[in-house]
């Protein structure tokens, strides 16, 4: 039963990742898109933890630590970019940001 639990955790990770990906495609609010990216990072963390439990090594736990750190940095910079974009265009619709210039 326990090995099955690892497999089910991996399937849950797969489902969360796919839901996040579809959200990135479907949502048009830039902050929701960003939250979907965070969801995908969480799914990856879950698969790291499941493999760590399965293989009995701690390297994956260290990797999760680094993913968390990078996610924090990414959120800070990404949200600052979103604030800058909102200041320029006064909208958060990603259709408004289709040109690679201000």
């Amino acid at each position, binding site marked *: 039963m326990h090995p099955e*639990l690892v*497999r089910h955790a991996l399937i*849950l990770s797969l489902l969360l990742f796919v839901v996040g990906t579809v959200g990135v495609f479907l949502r048009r609010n830039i902050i929701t898109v960003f939250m979907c990216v965070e969801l995908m990072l*969480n799914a990856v963390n*879950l698969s790291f933890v499941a493999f760590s439990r399965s293989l*009995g090594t701690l390297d994956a736990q260290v990797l999760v630590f680094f993913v968390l750190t990078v996610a924090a940095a990414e959120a800070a910079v990404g949200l*600052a*970019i979103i604030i800058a974009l909102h200041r320029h265009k006064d909208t958060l619709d*990603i*259709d408004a940001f289709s040109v690679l210039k201000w």
Partner: protein
Amino acid sequence: MSALDIVLFYFFATIALGAALVVVGQRNPTYSAFALIVSIASLSAIFGLLGSPFIAVLQVVVYAGAIMVLFVFVLMLLNVREEQKSEGRGTSPAFKAAALGLGGLLAVQILVVLLRATREGPAWAAHFDASARQVARRLFSAEYVYVFEATSILIVAALVGSLALARGGTSTRDKAAPPAGKSE
């Protein structure tokens, strides 16, 4: 692992997946943010059930505590309204079908990889100690300690970068923003 733990696993897995679907299906970003917090919290419970208490605590403190607060703060700061139904990306049924199709394709691909990785039945390590002490011992081993130091540089760079970006001092067109070097 007892039978109760297994029941709890499926309970929290259902909540995590349901909340994730709410994040994606919701038009109002504020509701999406709160659903994401629920999803993150139940994932943290799953990490605990998989024998990783340190990661479970980090998940709550860093994700739910720091990152999501930042998200909610920006949502309140920008006074975000609901997504408007308008012409453009993501509104046509063909685009939605394509997005769902691509998601299904991705799901099949990852499923194949996962099934190959766990073909002869996934292992379940007999001895597993992922307490904070053991994880820290691994983190500060010679293998990872320089990477750990590098992340501190990353954090400082992100801090400086986000300050510079959010103040908007670099733009010439933005008249509302004060010039760089003056506080707002």
